[in-house]
């Protein structure tokens, strides 16, 4: 359960801050320096004001489980080899809710509202990039 393996993420120019940050063991979010809105998923510009003054910042990595589901069936690899696993939304302290997995816990013990902290699974590549997939575990 805690050793969940993820497909390597596809990081575009717009989204690489998230995956690159995870590679350093950080949750990286976007904030608009014009209107102050924190947005997720990442985009090239702030979709609240359409300003191009986006900055990346390191978030606390703490949040709570907003909702979750213990997945017992997924026919696609690598998931079919690591059932059951937990799909969840985690509400970060900074506001955004992110789709993720919960690891390091007995699924039967999980509850909505439970505090969690970020946990990072490196996804090795052959081009020197150090990306990781952020998921969460009970705090």
């Amino acid at each position, binding site marked *: 359960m805690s050793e969940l393996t993820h497909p390597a993420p596809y990081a575009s120019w717009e989204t690489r801050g998230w995956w690159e940050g995870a590679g350093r063991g950080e949750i990286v979010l976007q904030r608009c320096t014009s209107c102050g809105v924190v947005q997720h*998923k990442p985009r090239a510009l702030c*979709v609240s004001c359409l300003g191009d003054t986006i900055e990346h910042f390191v978030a606390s990595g703490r949040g709570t489980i907003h909702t979750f*589901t213990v997945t017992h069936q997924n026919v696609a690899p690598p998931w079919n080899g690591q059932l059951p696993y937990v*799909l969840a939304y985690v509400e970060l302290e900074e506001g955004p809710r992110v*789709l993720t997995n919960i690891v390091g816990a007995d699924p039967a013990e999980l509850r909505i509202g439970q505090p969690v902290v970020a946990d990072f699974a490196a996804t090795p590549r052959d081009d020197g990039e150090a990306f990781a997939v952020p998921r969460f575990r009970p705090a």
Partner: protein
Amino acid sequence: MTLSGAVAIAGAYEHPTRWAPDKTEFQIMAESAKGALDDAGLTIRDVDALFAASMTMSGMGIVDLAEYLNLKPDYLDGTNIGGSSFVAHVAHAAAAIHAGLCEVALVLYGSTAASNAMAIGTGMGAERRDPSASFSTPYGMTTVGSYALVAQLHQQRFGTTSEQLAEIAVAMRHHASLNPHAKMRQPITVEDVLASRMISEPLHLLDCCIISDGGGAVVVTSAARARDLPKPPVLILGCGEAVAHQEIGRADLLTTAASQSGPKAFGMAGVTHDDIDFCMIYDSFTITVLATLENLGFCKIGDGGSFVSDGRIRLGGALPVNPDGGGLSSNHPGMRGIFLVIEATKQLRGECGERQVEGARLACVHGTGGTLGVAHSGATLILGVE
């Protein structure tokens, strides 16, 4: 003149197949077109507008379909917003006809999802590079999982029970037992649903729609022209369309697209919930029906569990839902929206035999497309007879 009541469904046909390994998608669409045009008393030569989407049609698939049918229509719409597409197509066709851009619209669907062994609800393994999927794929998000996230939140916040969700599956199966074409006709109980294997908690196997092959067609034309055709016109009285998604990470997962499209459709039709005789609601999963009824305003958000209990949504109840047995028991070839429109049409004409809703004059139809707790579309129609 207002759009409401100006355009009608003149023909509808549900392909009887549930298993068609010997057919192609386009073949099922063409066979369905024949059925719906016969029903309308029209021919393929009368068609000047073509609407379709499918599980495998590409972005330009509507052009391929026009060629397959040897049609050169004046109006084309290959909008694909998931399973709700065909509900939206009917609204788009109504607007185009009302604007004078075309006169006879054919809306088509065909699919061999079952015989091609598509894992519609529990697959999603392929890498997609669009910004949306690139944040789902690394986490093993499945279609059923996206609905389960909503179900879990609903249960936690409002005390909705798995028994209440199961009640929806039991009602759909009861309706399917009265539908000779339905794929699953053996009655089930709440206990059967709860005893079926867990797919994505809290949704069990029997909380999930089946996978079948199938297809269907709908013919839309002006109400004036429809009145000269053999079948009673089913008037398009109201329509609405919406999308709900993760926003920028702040979405309320219990507020679905129906909360936006529903009021539009009711407002245009000038009717209230009490006027509605029955509903056709996309039942990809039991939670879809519960969340849709709430968001359309048939009950308050949070009250869906008790609302669907005590037989209210069964035939003979105060608000029958999916008298054909729905996607949970009749058919679900990947995208089910067209069947919502077809069954509503047949019910409003009084053609449904054992499963007929007594005195059906006004229907609320709502399609949901996509992944409920992640990103989905909604399309609502209010349909009625004169």
